[in-house]
């Protein structure tokens, strides 16, 4: 029988994670305000935060739900434009409008996720990939041309939607990253998360276990879209200007590469991969023409040699690692501890 395995109690786990996160958040902001981090690197960090949210959100429908949607950039676009239009048209002070804009972007994107998910998720595999690609492209084309249909300027299409208040900061970006990761974590480590995973593993069996498959598929998809919308809103406030061409199939693929590289099904992997794939190209600015070539080669190599990505399906927690350290004895047999761990 198993020996006494000391586990860190739940409240303490939350506290440890929260403290570390707060340290990062406030420490980082202080460093930036103090001038220790240059403007350039601050921008890179903000972009990193946005990419992390994009990657962990796509990971919900690819890694956890087991589908392959190719239109993720469409949800980002919807969120970005919804938020930007709101902020440029409503006469509220930017500091009030921004949080509302963020939420609005997420909600609108989430609604699109539901609308697209309900028909699209009836299809499987390749067909789902194509139909989501189709929807993503339609969103882009509509954003490009809708003004001529409406008769007034809403999105400004190819001329770009300009003068969006640049309210995105390191602090609010990573605050969002923290909240998003927390919510995804709590969702996945619950009966709802298990339902979503069961669909990935074996849809027919999940059905037979009493899981309302369609409901959970749409839920996962909509959650993925919601968070992408939030990322889009942050992006709008980061760049200050929006153009539909930034949200095409290419963008969807960029995000997909990050998810695949990190390991589909691993949130930690997503964060890592997003970091690597944002930071490295920025630091190698001189070689930016090769960036996309490296991307593509990376994608192909990973699929051929290590399709499970950097972290596979491994989702760790800091507390779990601390527990292992506390309980470490030479020659001790370890358990496989994957999703079944009693984590908070």
């Amino acid at each position, binding site marked *: 029988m198993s020996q006494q395995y000391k586990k860190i109690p739940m409240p303490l786990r939350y506290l440890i994670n929260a403290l570390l996160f707060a340290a990062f958040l406030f420490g980082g902001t202080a460093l930036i305000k103090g001038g220790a981090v240059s403007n350039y690197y601050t921008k890179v960090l903000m972009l990193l935060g946005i990419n992390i949210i994009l990657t962990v959100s796509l990971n919900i429908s690819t890694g956890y739900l087991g589908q392959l949607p190719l239109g993720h950039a469409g949800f980002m676009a919807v969120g970005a434009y919804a938020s930007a239009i709101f902020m440029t048209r409503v006469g509220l002070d930017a500091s009030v409008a921004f949080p509302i804009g963020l939420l609005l972007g997420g909600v609108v994107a989430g609604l699109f996720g539901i609308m697209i998910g309900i028909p699209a998720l009836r299809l499987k595999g390749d067909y789902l990939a194509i139909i989501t690609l189709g929807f993503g492209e339609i969103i882009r084309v509509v954003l490009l041309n809708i003004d001529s249909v409406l008769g007034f300027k809403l999105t400004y299409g190819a001329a770009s939607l300009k003068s969006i208040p640049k309210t995105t900061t390191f602090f609010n970006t990573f605050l969002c990253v923290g909240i998003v990761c927390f919510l995804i974590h709590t969702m996945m480590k619950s009966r709802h998360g298990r339902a979503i995973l069961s669909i990935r593993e*074996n849809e027919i069996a999940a059905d*037979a276990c009493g899981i309302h498959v369609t409901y959970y598929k749409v839920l996962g998809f909509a959650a993925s879209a919601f968070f992408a919308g939030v990322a889009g809103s942050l992006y709008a406030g980061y760049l200050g200007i929006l153009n539909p061409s930034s949200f095409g199939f290419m963008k969807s693929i960029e995000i997909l590469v990050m998810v695949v590289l990190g390991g589909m099904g691993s949130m930690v992997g997503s964060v890592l991969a997003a970091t690597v794939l944002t930071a490295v190209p920025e630091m190698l600015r001189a070689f930016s023409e090769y960036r996309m070539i490296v991307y593509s080669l990376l994608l192909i190599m990973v699929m051929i040699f290590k399709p499970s990505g950097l972290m596979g399906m491994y989702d760790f927690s800091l507390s779990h690692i601390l527990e292992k350290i506390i309980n470490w004895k030479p020659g001790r047999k370890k358990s496989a501890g994957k999703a079944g761990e009693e984590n*908070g």
Partner: protein
Amino acid sequence: MDNLVPLPSLGMIPERDLGAIPILDIHHLGIDFGGLHAVDDFNLVIGRTEIAGLIGPNGAGKTTVFNLLTNVYTPTRGVILLDGMDIRGKSTHQLTKLGIARTFQNIRLFKDLSVEDNVKIGLHNAFTYSLFSALFRLPAYWTSERKAHETALELLSIFDMQNLADQPAGSLPYGAQRRLEIVRALATSPKLLLLDEPAAGMNPSETGELMENIRKIRNTFEIAIMLIEHDMNLVMGICEGIAVLNYGKIIAKGTPEQIKSDPVVIEAYLGRGKEASA
């Protein structure tokens, strides 16, 4: 077809179940696949705590019957009453909530999830809490998760598998995987448990254990169990009533003794060549 009265001659209900509504009452069930009657004129009654067997040569349509009962296929004809209620048109997951659980011929476990998680998914509708509670870790989450954890371990202990709780389901040996599937099905609190070839790939001693466990399950949970099997020792050993299927039609129904000596049954098996036991 309304107001049906179950006719005793359609089934082989054990005496102890005679007073109550049969758990399953099937009339003239049939399905066609492009002109072929895969299942035709299937009539069956199963008592509330009966262990029933469905046997027949390969391709006779046994799994098709299970698929019809769980809405994987939609019947072309016929009525299915579960606990007196017409269940045609109900979706698979609804049927599970209404009390039908099943295992699969080719094991369908959630391979990359832990053994405990597999069972907890079966408990999905047993200990519920809203998404909101989950997201913000409200008390309902903690209470339900604890209960689910305890119940999962309890269920696993039926087969003495509670120590394997953290292992990935895919890493278990074949026999253990089959047992896990049964535990998961039990977790859904069924009234009727459908087992599709539960002894496939098992050696005689494992099969013997399985027989005891099936009886134990029936006695503990007081549910009905219907199983598809090729292993005649198992079938004759624990089934109280047996229906024999050939080319989609029932050719014989009765107790093990009756079936063993029925010339029609013997011909169906011998005429097709000796059945190899799993």
